[in-house]
């Protein structure tokens, strides 16, 4: 059997038996354990098979990096990237592609002549190994991008200053405050005070696990600097054990403090001459359209 005949056998396998291959492939996937539905598995499997069939029909089934495989790479890239972003494990991702072997081998067993079966098996094996490796590589790259982006986001998010109301800003602190970060936090807060012309700044430390002498001093400095600029600070969310620590450390936290961010906001509103009151039930504005049956 000549090489071209063997190629033809492979091409026939994909073109004539696509639906059988797909059916056997999908049936071997243990879908119950993955987060995939049957339809998803089928449509993605079909896309892979289709691209693969075209690539093989172009006469090349050895080198996945060749131009004929551009479609295959695109399909696998999109698939793998998607899995990575949706939080599938690398095993789940690769297993899906590697399971294609079962579908292909099953059809080879049924269709192929005994003498060329081994050769075909070998070719299919090599092809699928390449697909699997490509998938894992793409998965890995996507995860790395994701991690890099998340660390940057965390950095940026670590010191957000949010405007709660006209003239009222809040700085919700989360995590440990070292002296470098505190300096960034302090500058951020003071600059926001200037930009938003806020007269009251609430520093919420609900998310701060512990406060040592240095942190307490940094907080106090921030409060003093804000006062020099003409803004008042309220500290909220001091945990009981932090309150004890501060007293034991002998740091005089001589600032207005409130138990919760909500209490601090209430005080801030009051100080800026605003009242929060409850409306009567009748005059409550609807948040959603009332349901049809309620109207009738």
């Amino acid at each position: 059997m000549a090489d071209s005949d063997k190629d033809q056998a492979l091409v026939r396998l994909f073109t004539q038996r696509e639906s059988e291959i797909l059916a056997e492939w999908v049936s071997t996937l243990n879908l119950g354990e993955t987060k995939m539905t049957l339809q998803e598995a089928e449509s993605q499997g079909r896309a892979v098979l289709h691209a693969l069939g075209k690539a093989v029909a172009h006469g090349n089934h050895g080198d996945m990096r060749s131009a004929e495989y551009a479609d295959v790479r695109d399909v696998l890239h999109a698939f793998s990237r998607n899995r990575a972003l949706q939080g599938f494990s690398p095993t789940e991702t690769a297993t899906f592609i590697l399971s294609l072997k079962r579908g292909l081998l099953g059809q080879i067993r049924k269709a192929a002549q005994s003498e060329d079966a081994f050769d075909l098996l070998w070719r299919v094996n090599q092809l699928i190994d390449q697909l699997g490796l490509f998938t894992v590589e793409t998965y890995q790259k996507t995860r790395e991008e994701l991690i890099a982006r998340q660390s940057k986001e965390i950095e940026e998010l670590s010191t957000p200053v949010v405007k709660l109301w006209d003239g009222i800003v809040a700085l919700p602190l989360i995590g440990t405050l070292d002296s470098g970060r505190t300096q960034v936090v302090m500058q951020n807060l003071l600059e926001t005070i200037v930009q938003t012309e806020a007269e009251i700044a609430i520093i919420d430390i609900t998310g701060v696990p512990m406060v040592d002498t240095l942190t307490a001093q940094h907080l106090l400095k921030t409060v003093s600097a804000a006062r020099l600029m003409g803004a008042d600070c309220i500290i909220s969310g001091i945990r009981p054990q932090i309150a004890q620590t501060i007293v034991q450390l002998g740091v005089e936290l001589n600032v207005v403090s409130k138990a919760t961010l909500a209490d601090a906001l209430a005080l801030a509103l009051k100080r800026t001459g605003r009242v929060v009151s409850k409306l009567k039930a009748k005059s409550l504005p609807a948040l959603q359209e009332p349901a049809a049956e309620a109207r009738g």
Partner: protein
Amino acid sequence: MDSIPILKIGSALLVTIQVDMHDQLATRLQDDLTEKIVQHRARGVLIDISALEIVDSFIGRMLANIANVSRLLDADTVVVGMRPEVAITLVELGLGLPGVKTALNAERGLALIGGVSAAGEAADDADDD
């Protein structure tokens, strides 16, 4: 010798410091202000330092002195527009300017002087909360 202009707005005096202060200028400003507070029966003094790139203990002392003298003459002093980097530096230096009122800008500062009674009410609110 040059001097810093003092503007009268209602019952308040407004001083905008824009130049790098040296000793004579600071002394002259204190003298001029004292005179004008009495002359205009001013209830408040606004000192706008938003143009100042640094405030050292010399300027800090001048601001505190003006506030103390004004208080004796029954006028409030409000320092307005201190820049964030200046505020951070002053705190690190150990100068909290006790006894000096502050505001973000001249408008708020004027409200603070004009509405002495309103500010007093707000303080009461904070206490009984």
